[in-house]
């Protein structure tokens, strides 16, 4: 199977460790991962902020870049949701693009989907002797219906203690440009999320999206809380006691 990594622009610049972790997990499982360097951004921020015309070159770019792969994997629920949920709508009216999207969108997976649904794995041989709490990010939860998939992977990690998060399914308040346009409401939502994370006493707050984690982590850092954000791919990649 030809697997391509779609790193996503935020991860590429800000969280390269998450990309390295995805590569490491998949290679450990015996797969070859390709990184097509023509990839840039999925266009989610543009499309969701109302700049459809400006998003379209990125939609086309994604479809061209990944057309030849059997599977595309991204460590981001919201970018995958953009491809699977929004691309078909954005492509409407352009038959070639519609066909391109119809071909690639169903083969674009969030990491947990690829591991659990496609490769049939829940134990990736990871060791992570720490307490963690899991925040299901909105697009993973309600657009991709990831459900228990990331959790089932975390449960397979040796030494990991999972603590339940109060109000887990509530949005952290990020919402892309919402965090800036409605900073007050966003901060109020974040305060509740950070409070819930702190209440668990866990060392790490885990999620499937680094943009949400950057938001929650930014709030925790401002509150001088001890809990730190970490993408679950990095936990799955971990094989020792290093944090």
């Amino acid at each position, binding site marked *: 199977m030809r697997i391509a990594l779609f*790193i996503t*622009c935020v*991860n*590429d*610049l*800000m969280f*390269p460790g998450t*990309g*390295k972790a995805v590569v490491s997990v998949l290679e450990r499982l015996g797969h070859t991962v390709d*990184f097509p*360097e*023509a990839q*840039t*951004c999925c266009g989610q*921020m*543009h*499309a*969701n*902020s*109302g*700049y459809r015309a*400006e*998003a379209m*070159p*990125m939609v086309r*770019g994604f479809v061209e870049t990944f057309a030849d792969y059997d599977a595309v994997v991204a460590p981001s629920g919201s970018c995958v949701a953009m491809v699977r949920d*929004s691309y078909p*709508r954005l492509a409407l009216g352009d038959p070639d693009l519609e066909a391109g999207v119809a071909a690639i969108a169903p083969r674009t997976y969030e990491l947990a989907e690829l591991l659990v649904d496609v490769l049939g794995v829940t134990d990736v041989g990871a060791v992570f002797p720490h307490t963690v709490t899991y925040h299901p990010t*909105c*697009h993973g*939860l*309600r*657009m991709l219906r990831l459900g228990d998939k990331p959790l089932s992977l975390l449960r397979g990690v040796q030494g990991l203690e999972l603590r339940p998060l109060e109000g887990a*399914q509530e*949005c952290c*308040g*990020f*919402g*892309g*440009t*919402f*965090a*800036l*346009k*409605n*900073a*007050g*409401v*966003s*901060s*109020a*939502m*974040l*305060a509740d999320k950070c409070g819930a994370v702190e209440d668990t006493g866990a060392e790490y707050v885990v999620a499937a999206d680094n943009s949400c984690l*950057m*938001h929650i982590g*930014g*709030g925790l*850092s*401002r509150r001088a809380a001890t809990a730190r954000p970490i993408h679950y791919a990095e936990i799955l990649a971990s094989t020792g006691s290093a944090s």
Partner: protein
Amino acid sequence: MNGTGNIVALKPFPDAARLELDDAQLRTNLRRATHTIRDKRLRVVGEVDDWEQLRLSGAAIKDDVLARLPELLERFEEAATKAGAVVHWARDSAEACEIVTALVKETAAREVVKVKSMATQEIGLNEALEAAGIAATETDLAELIVQLAEDTPSHILVPAIHYNRSQIREIFLSKMPGVTRGLTDEPRALAEAARKHLRAKFLTATVGISGANFAIADTGTLVVVESEGNGRMCLTLPQTLISVVGIEKILPDFSSLDVFLQLLPRSSTGERMNPYTSMWTGVTPGDGPQTTHIVLIDNGRTATLSDEVGRQALRCIRCSACLNVCPVYERVGGHAYGSVYPGPIGAILSPQMTGDGANKTLPYASTLCGACFDACPVRINIPEVLVHLRQKGPKSRAEHAAFASISWIMRDRRRYAAALRAARRGSAPLRGRGPLRRLPWPASAWTVSRDLPLPPKESFREWWAKR
């Protein structure tokens, strides 16, 4: 034609929201109330095996109605007229208020009793009647509280959700005639006080005013669904009954009503069935109001219907499940939305009804978390419509320029890679001092409550290239 009335936000949402966020009591009240209804709804929805099928049916019936609305409206008018009702048509709120005011004046009544109705709140009927010297009394408990407080509703179903019971007691003490200091804030005592106050109004009023949850095209029947029985009083005791109904409330027949009588109570109050369902068809000689009027209002609905993506908002049955699950609504309450339709549904309904960029900040009053879509009994894809309205709506030149230049960078791998290098190098002097705590505008909106990490020394693609 654009809609008018109490559906126009006077302040941009972020400004209005900021004021509400300062009210700690409000947030406590909202959190308690929305979470209680939310949990009840989840329980009763979970009992229904074919809930998803019901949602699909509800959406399909509404879409069919919207696709042949003119035909069904005419059929409704014909049937209702034949049954003895008088049907009126209003293009906007001013016309609707004029029609209703003239009808009340014809009866010489100076007082009317009202059933809780979003349509009459939308058109500002109480204000119009007051200007004509007619006193309208809200008889739904929560609407009465809001009216006595000289406030506006902040929720579609629970208009006084922003008050707790001790605040309600204070309102009754200062505004309700005949109430003494002995009144406690026990829900039972408060309800009893309202009951006594309203009983006199029910028995003397000669004109009742209502909305309708559904209007059956086949028979000309109107349907009101309620919990307190005040509606039944208003719909049966007065001589004259005037009902203000949005044109999208039409259902083809009684068999389609079946679906909605299952969807609505479970989604709104979290009950398996609502206590009172009243239906009337024109006039029944010797039984109930002997004069019935139906005022069908457009007020921006036809304009909404003309938008292929946005029209799904007209499926709304005003259950308010989307408000109760919305994390934004929970923090700011209904007043921040400026319209009688708050929350996620208000954010897509109000801007479409008013058109012309009024309410332009409302489509941005959402993180697109999708909780509203999951809760909606008629499957309105609210996030989809929000994004669609953002696309259609006005934008600032500076923001447009910023997005256009990012798009220019992102459409070319070399420009993109160069931008990553530039971002990394630009932030290099700051490295080693921890995350950023203060940034200049517009990024200051981020650092108001959040630190920002710096990009690490090497991007992923740089690492990959060296591998």
